[in-house]
């Protein structure tokens, strides 16, 4: 469904962030994109959704295909219309708009007569939002804001949702709730999801396929079962390694192996 082919992204004409990244997301699946800070995960999502331009970024090489259509040259608004919706990192709700107005903004690309049914669907997923429909979004808790951010995505009825760290800054219980919603969304609506996460444990249990990024490239990919069984992933992302001496420097060398 989504196919990223060897893209390079440059910020400010000098900073090369993605160095030939390729990945594929299959229709109806959840794919997780993991990696440490600064690996280029968010940049990858923004490259797909066309949101690089406000950050002065540019795709200089490679191509992105979505549903058999090339989208890397398209405008952000057109990309949303073709069925890709990004839930941005840090929730980014419109603070001085009410919950309902936030949802209406989410449905901007949809025909007007579908808005009220879509809104009912969102309230079905998040009954808490219904109670707060006329409250200003800025006054809600972090968890509710994240629900609203996902709700806005549901309003747009996209084929593919790009989710950037939905668990950011949430209590463990809420993280679980949010991931539940993500998997239900995938199962019931058939929405394809590309998920960027720091919480590797959660992401790998929700997703079907995983990519691990480092330094602007995919260094490892596989089904989530394969990844969970991988020793490196266990050690660096899941924190499951056996106790060992801190004098053991093999740690660093193993990391290097991926970069060469």
């Amino acid at each position, binding site marked *: 469904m989504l196919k990223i082919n060897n893209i390079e992204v440059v910020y400010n004409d000098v900073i090369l962030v993605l160095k030939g990244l390729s990945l594929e997301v299959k229709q109806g699946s959840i794919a997780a994109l993991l990696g440490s800070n600064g690996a280029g995960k968010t940049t990858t999502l923004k490259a797909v959704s066309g949101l690089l331009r406000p950050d002065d970024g540019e795709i200089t090489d490679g191509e992105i295909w979505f549903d058999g259509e090339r989208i890397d040259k398209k405008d952000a608004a057109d990309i949303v219309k073709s069925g890709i919706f*990004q839930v941005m990192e840090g929730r*980014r709700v419109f603070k001085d708009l009410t919950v309902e*107005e936030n949802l209406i903004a989410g*449905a901007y690309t949809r025909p007007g007569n579908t808005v009220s049914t879509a809104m009912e669907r969102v309230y079905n997923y998040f009954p808490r939002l219904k109670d707060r429909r006329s409250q200003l979004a800025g006054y809600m808790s972090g968890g509710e804001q994240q629900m609203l951010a996902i709700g806005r995505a549901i309003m747009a009825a996209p084929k593919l949702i790009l989710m950037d760290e939905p668990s950011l800054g949430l209590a463990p219980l809420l993280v679980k709730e949010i991931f539940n919603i993500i998997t239900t969304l995938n199962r019931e609506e058939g929405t394809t999801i590309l998920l960027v996460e720091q919480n590797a444990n959660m992401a790998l249990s929700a997703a079907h396929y995983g990519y691990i990024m480092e330094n602007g490239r995919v260094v490892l990919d596989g089904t989530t079962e394969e990844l969970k069984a991988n020793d490196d992933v266990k050690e660096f992302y899941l924190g499951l390694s056996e106790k060992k001496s801190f004098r053991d420097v093999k740690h660093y060398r193993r990391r290097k192996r991926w970069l060469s």
Partner: protein
Amino acid sequence: MEFFVQLIITGTVIGSIYALLALGFTLIYKATDVVNFAQGELLMVGAYICLHLTVSYNVPFWASFLITLVFSFTMGFFIEKVFLRRMIGEPIISIIMLTIGLSSVMKAVVQIFWGTDTRTYPQVFSSEPFMIAGLSISRVYIYSIAAVAVFLVLFSLFFKKSKVGVAMRAVASDQQAALSMGIDVKKIFALSWGIAAVVSAVGGIFLGNINGINTTLSHFGLKVFPVVILGGLDSIVGAIVGGLIIGILENLAGGYIDPLIGGGAKEIFPYVVMIAVLMIKPYGLFGTKAVEKV
């Protein structure tokens, strides 16, 4: 007492026009982060176009009013598309200089076409005043307050209820998030300019009906600063309330202080208020207290 009430009424009329102008200013500032120094010129151009249509082409007033609104919208729309669009991401001072340049150009163009003499609108509203509670109030005052009120209500409904209005506020709140929602931010920018030009033109037309017009009409653009600073730069409610307060205060100053000191108080009073507000309540009555990170 009657003098006082008359001052209040005149102040409300002028204030409601300030409110319209400030609404346009705030709209542009909120949505596009541009401080527009050409707001008064948008008002002036609107007033001249409507006058010209009515006088030279004998178009009925209501029709020339509507044509002016369409013209103003188009003008605002294209000013954004041609000039401001290229300035996105440029330093704020360059953008301010651009709007000051625009204001000079518009003023000059108006002077080329219509000269600098004061012109008056033909009698549109009957000159027989309304009598309300023993006070005679001129008809044009009543109509302009009513028209301004209608426009303000229409716009609040537009921002609250319509999809595009909500999208405009979304852009004002968080541009990138709005972009991620498929909202065409550039179109919203152009739309803000269009609407700002429309509300200014409405103000200009009614001012013209009250006082007649010449190119000093553009000075109203500077009065917008005390208004928006009092109301809060980014608040639409603030623009309306601030407009009324400044209009009324200005007239009271003109009525009571001017005779004592021999004139001039009316002109400077709004700016005195502005400085006082800046010292006491720098975000205005309704503005958001945003912490600017340096």
